[in-house]
Structure formats: C-alpha cells, structure tokens
C-alpha cells in the first residue's frame, strides 16, 4: 500500500490555526483526526498533517433533546454512550456498531467517516436519515445540513481549509421511529447495502417519511419516490410491497464487483420490506 511520506505534523491550539496551516499549502497539507484516512489517502503530494487532537473535538453532548457530537469522537464511543443509544431508536449507535471491527471503530472518527463515506457508509446513511447538521469552520462557524452536504462529493462540499468540528442531530418527537439495517456477507464486511428509515407515526398514519440508501452509490441517497408511496398513508401489506418495489426500481445503483445491479435492487426491496414490517407496523410505544 502506498503511504504518504509525512514530513511535518503540526499540533494546533485553535481551529483558526488549523485553517491557516491548511490554506498555506493546499493539497500538501491534510487533517489528522483518527488517522485512517491518511493511511488510505491517494494524495502522493501530502506531506504535512494538521493534528486536530488537541482541540478535544470528541465530546458527546445532549442539546435541546438532540445530540451534538464532536467530529473526532471515535465510533466505539458512539456504540457505548447511553445518550446515543437512547437517541432516535438507537440508529446512530447501531450504524456505528455495524461499521468495521472493534479495532477499526476504536480509531475511526465520526467526522472522518461522514466526510469519507465511501468505504464505510453506515454512519453517513444514518446521518442523512436523521437530518444531521455539519458544523463547519470556514473562518466563521457555518452549519450545513446533511442533505446539502451530500448533494456533491464531500471534497467539493469542503474546500481546502474547511474543518468539520461537530455534527448535531436534532431532537426527534416521541412519535417518530427509526430503523437501520446493513447487509453484508459477514458481520464486518463492507456493506453491500445500508438502509435507514425514519417516519412519524400518528394515529396509524405515516408522515415525514425518510428512506436513505447507502453503499448503492458512493454517497447516501434518499429514495424519494418510495418515501412518497408511504406519505400520509396507513401501512398495509400491499403498501409495503408496493413501496419496496418502488424503492428497488428507483434506487440509483453503482457498480459493485460483489453482486449484480439487480441483486442489489432485490436486496433493497427485501430489506425495506423487513424494516417496514418490523418497525412501522406496530403501535407507537414512545421513547
């Protein structure tokens, strides 16, 4: 494996210092968070790292019923934190748990995986379904919602010098349910497909339905036509089958050496059917 030849590692005291260093030598200077993206980086010109670890961006805070998670929080901390397990039916914790192995999760950071969702798309899938907001330092603090962030490749959403400091996950009403599923041939394998589903269930009617697919394309994508099938409807078995078929039919699918495009569509239909039957067909019990 090619590993960049790093000549300098700068430890910084502020995000402003980090930004200044990144902008001083664009392309040759990268961010060091968990470190794994540096190992897998294909940028041969990268020779300097800006070490964000002193900034302590690894806190998990509850905020107005939601969560604010530092971008350098490792996935293991998301798996074990009660606040994360208790939030949104635990889908963020579950997505983190289904990412890589324990050894990987001890190193990989939430921010790193959301910015580089190509190998492990689990948390990005959940973040899009949860309508997460990225707090980005660009000289000033800005917030970008996950839907906007993933409209284009993160490299374009984050020009040189931009630093994701935190990710906030909004408060979810008690009537809102979530589910996350991943399919891979083994527990730890890279995902063939991930699905995250959220919907508000009131008097048996589904509202604000969000269905997100990951690993079908490089970036997570909402399956809006399948969402439309469920919006304002009462869940019935024929509707579940219709929605699953619509999701499979309309999902964008990129090339995957492990299976055919049709296989992935069939997978999508099967997984979504299971989620709808198991999570959204029973009365709301609250959180």
């Amino acid at each position, binding site marked *: *494996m090619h*590993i*960049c*030849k*790093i*000549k*300098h*590692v700068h430890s910084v005291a502020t995000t402003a210092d980090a930004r200044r260093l990144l902008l001083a030598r664009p392309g040759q200077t990268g961010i*060091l968070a968990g*470190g*794994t993206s*540096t*190992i*897998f980086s294909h940028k041969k010109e990268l*020779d300097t*790292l800006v*070490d964000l670890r002193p900034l302590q961006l690894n806190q998990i805070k509850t905020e107005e019923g939601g969560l604010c998670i530092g971008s350098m929080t*490792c996935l*293991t901390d998301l798996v074990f934190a009660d606040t994360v397990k208790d939030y949104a039916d635990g889908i963020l914790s579950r997505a983190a748990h289904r990412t*890589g*192995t*324990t*050894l*990987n999760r*001890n*190193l990989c950071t939430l921010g790193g995986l959301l910015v580089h969702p190509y190998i492990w798309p689990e948390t990005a899938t959940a973040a899009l379904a949860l309508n997460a907001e990225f707090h980005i330092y660009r000289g000033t603090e800005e917030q970008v919602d996950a839907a906007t962030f993933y409209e284009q490749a993160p490299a374009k959403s984050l020009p040189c010098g931009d630093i994701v400091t935190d990710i906030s996950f909004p408060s979810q009403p008690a009537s809102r349910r979530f589910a996350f599923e991943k399919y891979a041939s083994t*527990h*730890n394998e890279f995902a063939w497909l991930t699905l995250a589903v959220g919907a508000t269930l009131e008097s048996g009617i589904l509202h604000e339905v969000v269905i997100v697919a990951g690993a079908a394309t490089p970036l997570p994508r909402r399956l809006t036509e399948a969402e439309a099938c469920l919006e304002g409807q009462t869940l019935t078995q024929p509707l579940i089958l219709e929605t699953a078929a619509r999701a499979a039919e309309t999902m964008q699918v990129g090339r995957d050496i492990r299976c055919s495009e049709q296989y992935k569509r069939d997978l999508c239909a099967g997984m979504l059917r299971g989620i709808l039957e198991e999570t959204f067909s029973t009365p709301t019990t609250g959180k």
Partner: protein
Amino acid sequence: MTISLTVNGNAHEVELEGNETLLDVLRALGYKSVKYGCGEGACGACTVIIDGKAVNSCLIPAPTADGLSIITVEDLGDVQKLSVLQQAFIDAGAVQCGFCTPGMILSSKALLDRTPRPTEDEIKDALDGNLCRCTGYVQIIEAVQLAAERLQNQTA
C-alpha cells in the same frame, strides 16, 4: 522527523522517513509480538493498546504517534511469569500457530479492563477484528471466559 513514544513504559526516540506505520516502528524497536498480517486493518495481528483501546497499529501513521503510550503483549508477562490471560489461552487450548495470539490477547485485555464479566456476545464483539485461521475461535472465547473467571476469583 523524530518522534518520542513510550512502549510498555519504556521511552523511545525514533527517527522516521515519514511513510512508516506504527507497526513498522514497533517491530523495528524489537516488539516482535506485533505482527504484520494484512497491513490494512482487517486481520488484527498488529493489535496494540493505546489509551485503553485496542487498535490496529498498521492504520496509524508513525509520524502521528509522537507522545503516545503504547502497550504490546510483551508488557503482560513473559515465559517466567505469564499473565492470567496468557495462561488462560494456554489452558483453554486457544493457541495453535500463535500468529494471531498477541492480538487476540490484547483485544481481550482491553475488553476485560473495561468489562470484567463480559457476555459471550461481548467477547465475540471485542474480538471481531482479530482473525484466526487455525483454532475456529471456540477455544479463544473459552479462554477469555476462563481469564475473566480467574481474574474475578483473584479480586474476590
């Protein structure tokens, strides 16, 4: 560039080219229990403990290891005095070729330090990044359970 790191309580200063991993550095320093398996974070043969967490040393760029305190299996015990975990691996027959064993033991140590009485699922979860091509894992899980029991008895 030069980095300083502590391995099993011993301070080291290392001159780097810049493209080494922590695994390369540890082996060059003589900590040969840390094995090169896959080099991409899949097999766990290079496991070390940093800040109480078991991690793949092959995924850590060496220039970023400055100031780290690292534990390898050499810290746990030696042939004259094995640790409870090491002895449990022998007693449970959890060792065959031995290549994966240091990583298995360190992942187990990180688990038992955090969760002294782990369930079988928690053991499987903690060891999910350590591959063994010989034993079939059953004896390894039994070894961790045995070590947990013995450590509990020691503290009782």
